């Protein structure tokens, strides 16, 4: 009898403790500092956005956002552990607290922002859904695609846009759903489908890896708005602020002409916004709960937005994407960060 009693009590205790662990949620910022590294949800591998390079080091513009946050929090951009996530599990992984932030070409939509308990903190790439076809099909516009087979990655806004686009244009199609980027590439190259559709950035990234990239063309039509940006869990505004302003610091850095090469000289600038950004004028770091040189660390270790863009996906890379919408507002794009004051 006593045995059963003690068993009962211990069972209750275990339950109580596990419930307490599951229920407790300290501030993410404290958790990250305590752990000594940032857990960042990344793509499973999308060249130019988030993928490990030949040496196994993660690279890309999405990865640079993680690095910027690590630079802001720890003063060391390398203190990041990347957790590759598929489009299917990415939100669950973030919700469950397995990662601190998600920076993985994820579209900011109302339902994700509100219903899934996420908080999108900004946009690091303005994208839109496009179509890629083989050049020898002789197609020049997406309105000529009636009856085509379309390869599509499941679990994305892409599917709904595709359904809407074909419906609105009175065209039919066969959808060939695939799970990952690489499967889509394989099915497309094998001729299982005529068209590969995903965010245009993804199409460029895929094409760069094809045996003959020049044999494929991305059609001019962009059928959706896909603002891609980092997301954090809802309800921890302090942490959301840190991620939001880490991204903004990179954009403001470009605006002010501060890059990783000249960041030390710029400390002697007489532009007050530069001095505020680089922490020469103290006080702004403390507002975020960071050290005053947090933005300096981002710009010196990760660089500004333009550097990140040119290094990973710009015209001089195999991905070969023009700045387009992603140019600063003063250069004809829509990239715009609130003022640093």
């Amino acid at each position: 009898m006593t045995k059963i009693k003690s068993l009962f009590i211990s069972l209750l205790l275990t339950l109580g403790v596990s419930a307490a662990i599951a229920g407790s949620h300290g501030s993410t910022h404290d958790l990250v500092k305590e752990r000594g590294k940032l857990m960042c949800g990344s793509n499973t591998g999308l060249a130019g956005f988030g993928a490990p390079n030949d040496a196994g080091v993660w690279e890309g513009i999405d990865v640079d956002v993680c690095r910027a946050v690590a630079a802001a929090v720890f003063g060391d951009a390398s203190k990041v552990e990347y957790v590759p996530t598929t489009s299917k599990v990415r939100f669950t992984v973030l919700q469950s607290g397995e990662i601190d932030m998600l920076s993985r070409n994820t579209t900011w939509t109302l339902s994700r922002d509100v219903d899934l308990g996420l908080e999108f903190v900004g946009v690091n790439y303005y994208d839109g859904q496009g179509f890629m076809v083989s050049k020898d099909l002789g197609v020049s516009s997406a309105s000529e695609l009636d009856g085509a087979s379309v390869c599509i990655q499941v679990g994305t806004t892409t599917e709904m846009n595709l359904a809407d686009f074909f419906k609105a244009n009175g065209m039919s199609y066969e959808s060939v759903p695939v799970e990952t980027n690489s499967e889509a590439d394989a099915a497309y190259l094998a001729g299982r489908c005529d068209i590969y559709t995903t965010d245009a950035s993804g199409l460029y990234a895929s094409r760069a890896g094809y045996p003959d990239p020049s044999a494929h063309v991305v059609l001019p039509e962009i059928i959706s708005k896909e603002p891609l940006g980092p997301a954090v869990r809802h309800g921890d505004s302090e942490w959301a602020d840190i991620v939001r302003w880490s991204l903004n610091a990179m954009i403001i850095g470009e605006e002010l002409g501060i890059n990783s090469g000249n960041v030390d000289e710029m400390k002697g600038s007489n532009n007050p916004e530069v001095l505020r950004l680089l922490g020469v004028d103290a006080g702004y770091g403390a507002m975020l709960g960071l050290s005053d040189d947090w933005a300096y660390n981002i710009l010196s270790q990760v660089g500004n937005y333009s550097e990140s863009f040119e290094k990973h996906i710009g015209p001089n890379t195999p991905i070969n994407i023009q700045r387009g919408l992603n140019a600063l507002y003063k250069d004809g794009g829509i990239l715009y960060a609130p003022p640093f004051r």
Partner: protein
Amino acid sequence: MQTSLIRKIIFDEKSRSLLIQTLVIGLFAIFIYLIAQQTAYNLEKRGISSGFDFLNISAGYDISIRLIPFTSEDTHLRAYFVGLLNTLMIAVCGCILATILGFIVGIIRLSSNWLFRNIAYVYVEFTRNVPVLLQIILYYSILLSLPKIKQAFPIFNTFYLSNRGLFSPSPIFKEGFSIVFYSFVIAIIFTFFLKRFLKSKQEQTGNQYPIFFINSAIIIFTPILFYYIMGMPLEFDHPVLKGFNFKGGMVIRPEFLGMLFGLSIYTAAFISETVRSGIISVSKGQREASQALGLKSSFVMRLIIIPQALRVIIPPLTSQYLNLTKNSSLGIAIGYADLVHGFGGISLNQTGRAIEIMLIVMLTYLSISLIISLSMNIYNKSVQFKGNA
């Protein structure tokens, strides 16, 4: 009085075990309740909404492999049924093919022909010991290396084989075809009674009748006769290569074929072993006795060996059917739009209702499995020895 009750509970074996069992069930119920409670609390705390309202929201995506009409405006609930039917389709087709293949291979494994026997042996050992997922991907890759759509391979200029599937003409039923169909049904019912009649006649007179041939002829020729009487009320819609794809006709997609081959070839290997063990379990004396009676060897197999072997075969066969059905959830790997892929994948992602959707999908698989078990148990009872054997 009170002490005697406690005494009874502690020292009486029956009431003691009753008490312990009640306690265990109670604890388990509390455990489940606490988990559910905690999950609901955590979801609420993280601002994640829950509930089953999403089932009535329009799905917003298309499914190409489907048995019932579905457009992006239909609800998630309908997407669930589309997926469920696709799962059932692959399960039923897979089980039938695996059974046929398994029986053939199982019998070949016992054949006296060295070459056949060993080919079957290699097949069984290879397929049983390679993960089914890899086999599915292998067959799918082979199907993808078929000719591209523009070079589709014509078979009798009626069927076209390409890496987008096997295109075939689809039937268009015109007025009067229902009569042909009913004549077919009536023919089947008629042959059922004819069989009983001829059997009883055989038992009375000892004369054997070629029941199989008579019945086959009736089933085949009755509808054909009515087909011509009704003025051939059937036309075919032939697939024609137009633009990107074939228009018209029907198509069997490579995703379906990849799943079908992968699942049935894999499961058939297990079934063949079951069949082999069943046949071996029938004692040698049975075969020798029937041969001594002068029965043809096909009769020995069909009338003596197989009915007795079935007693041993059915229970493990059931579990193979269950395995195949559950393995059909691997369709996600090659884009076969089954329950897990469409409803359990795409709908889950669009709505974010992971717990609700997984619960529905799991309960569905549970129900399918239980139904298979139940019907196989009923069948099993019917093949067991009756009375005191």
